[in-house]
């Protein structure tokens, strides 16, 4: 009796994961973002568009960090490869303007996926996990930054490259703020729901199991390094898409798009929203971006100090993320109220 009901129970479990609260929140967020241009225009809208692209970048990190539990300290490498990919293709090669941005995106995403596959192969198949993975990816960002700064003939060195054309799909150019905003939102929504759907299914369950006990999962016959490598490559490609769209939307690339500080910031965006929730990455990016506007206006040093303090607080005060901390506090207060009655 019990044996026959078990598979259906498991089936219900996976189905409920798909339509969980995170999914509903995601739909609400996307609807709000879709009507946002009615209340903003010009410069404000281009800022919101950049936030959407950063949210896509944060989503890509959450796809790997949140789902596998392995922290990548080098995601700016992939964002930067996407950005430099489209910039270098458009500026150094003479390609038909109607397809140049598509070719550039492909080059950037291809480079990011390639680097992720090669580096991921060496470290994931080498059995490197956890903290060592984090150090190697940290070094990866340093390497990429060294190359971006030290190879001015191609990358423009410290000043970067100016004149990246806006995204154009077979002659249909998305240059004005509204259309580039909706392009960013469409890509973000597609990646968000796509990731939620994939991670709500079998792959998500296996990755969670790997987080708990990789050896056990391998014993069950899953090729765990392969699954981790593919997730890493998918995550890197998504980061590169965000980087490529960002470079095209703003018209330039600079070495700070491939720097350690950006790798650090994206970790905060994900951590603020709560890692592993996917939609949390999007909300976290928006909250931190808003905070950054407030704090950076005080002093140029204030923002890095705020980030540093946040990391320390994250570990010592709210290890499960600020959102979980607040929810825990509210539950705690409610329980106390209930006890008083």
């Amino acid at each position, binding site marked *: 009796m019990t044996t026959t009901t078990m598979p259906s129970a498991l089936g219900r479990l996976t189905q409920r994961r798909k339509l969980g609260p995170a999914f509903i929140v995601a739909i609400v967020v996307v609807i709000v973002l879709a009507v946002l241009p009615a209340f903003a225009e010009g410069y404000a809208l281009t800022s919101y568009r950049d936030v959407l692209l950063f949210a896509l970048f944060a989503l890509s990190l959450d796809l790997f960090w949140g789902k596998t539990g392995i*922290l990548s*300290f080098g995601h700016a490498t992939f964002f930067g490869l996407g950005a430099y990919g489209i910039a270098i293709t458009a500026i150094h090669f003479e390609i038909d303007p109607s397809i140049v941005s598509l070719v550039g995106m492909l080059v950037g995403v291809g480079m990011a996926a390639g680097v992720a596959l090669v*580096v991921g192969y*060496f*470290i994931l*198949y*080498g*059995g*490197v996990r*956890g*903290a*060592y993975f*984090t*150090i*190697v990816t*940290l*070094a*990866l960002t*340093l*390497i*990429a930054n*060294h*190359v971006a*700064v*030290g*190879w001015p003939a191609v990358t423009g060195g410290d000043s970067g490259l100016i004149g990246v054309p806006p995204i154009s799909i077979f002659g249909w150019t998305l240059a004005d703020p509204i259309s580039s905003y909706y392009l960013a939102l469409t890509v973000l929504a597609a990646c968000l729901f796509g990731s939620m759907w994939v991670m709500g299914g079998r792959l998500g369950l296996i990755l969670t199991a790997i987080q708990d006990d990789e050896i056990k999962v391998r014993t069950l016959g899953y090729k765990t390094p392969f699954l981790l490598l593919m997730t890493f490559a998918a995550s890197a490609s998504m980061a590169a898409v965000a980087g490529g769209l960002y470079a095209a939307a703003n018209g330039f690339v600079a070495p700070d798009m491939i720097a*350690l500080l950006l790798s*650090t910031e994206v*970790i905060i965006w994900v951590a603020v929203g709560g890692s592993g929730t996917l939609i949390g990455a999007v909300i976290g990016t928006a909250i931190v971006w808003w905070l950054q506007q407030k704090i950076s206006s005080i002093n140029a*040093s204030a923002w*890095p*100090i705020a*980030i*540093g*303090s*946040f*990391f*320390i607080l*994250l*570990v*010592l005060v709210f*290890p499960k993320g600020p959102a979980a901390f607040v929810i825990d506090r509210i539950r705690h207060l409610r329980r106390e109220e209930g006890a008083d009655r």
Partner: protein
Amino acid sequence: MEALIPFALNALTLISILLIVSMGMAIIFGLMNVINLAHGEFITIGAFTLVVVQTLGGNFWLALIAAPMVGYMIGLVLEKALIARIYENPLHAILVTWGLSLILQQVIQLIFGAAPQSVTGPFPGSIDVFGVAYPAYRLFLIAFALATFALTIAVFKKTRFGLDLRASIQSSEMASVMGVNPDKINARAFASGAALAALAGVLLAPLTAVTAFMGINYLARSFFVVLIGGAGSISGVAAGSGLIGSLETALSYEIPTTVAQALVLALAIVILRFRPQGILPA
């Protein structure tokens, strides 16, 4: 043959710098297994100790004595306040020490400004080595680094502190049963690592631009020196520094230095795939 001597000396200079920078890392990361991303900032603190000492009218030698003390004190305070809480979880160590690193960088920049500081080393002239003139300070640096390395090994192998530290790393519980206080040992070991990094900072300062962000250049390299040399072995640091230092010097003759650094780090990742335990494991 004539051309080989400056090459060998340049390589030896870089190896010595890496050696002394990585020794602190070998203690904190290799032996204590704490990933300390603020290690570079202890180097910066050492270099800025020299800046302060020279501004106040002191000389290089005074700073060479003061910097390890400053590094030790700051290391001790930070260990008590933060690091002692994160020994269990490497991810927490990464986040906390990275946060610390960002804060220290900005605080140093707020105090001293963004422009590079100028410092002067001793021995301005050059010395004839087998018919080739070579800066005297660099020769001093090589000798000093080797001496510090030998002294550190001696402390580990011959003193009570070294014995207690090695014991509590092998088995913290057993060591505490035998009367070793692990909290005290950890604090002193972390502070010693910080002191060595600060010492490295003073030695480096006359050769590079002293800014609040100078430490980051050495962070990844010292991690890889320790990883490649073999985490947990002090003699592995010599092997790791030798490999990374000579490769980087050789490559810098052909391609830009930054790209050479990048290439060496990439190569280090490949080496780790095939020898994850390092060249000279403990």
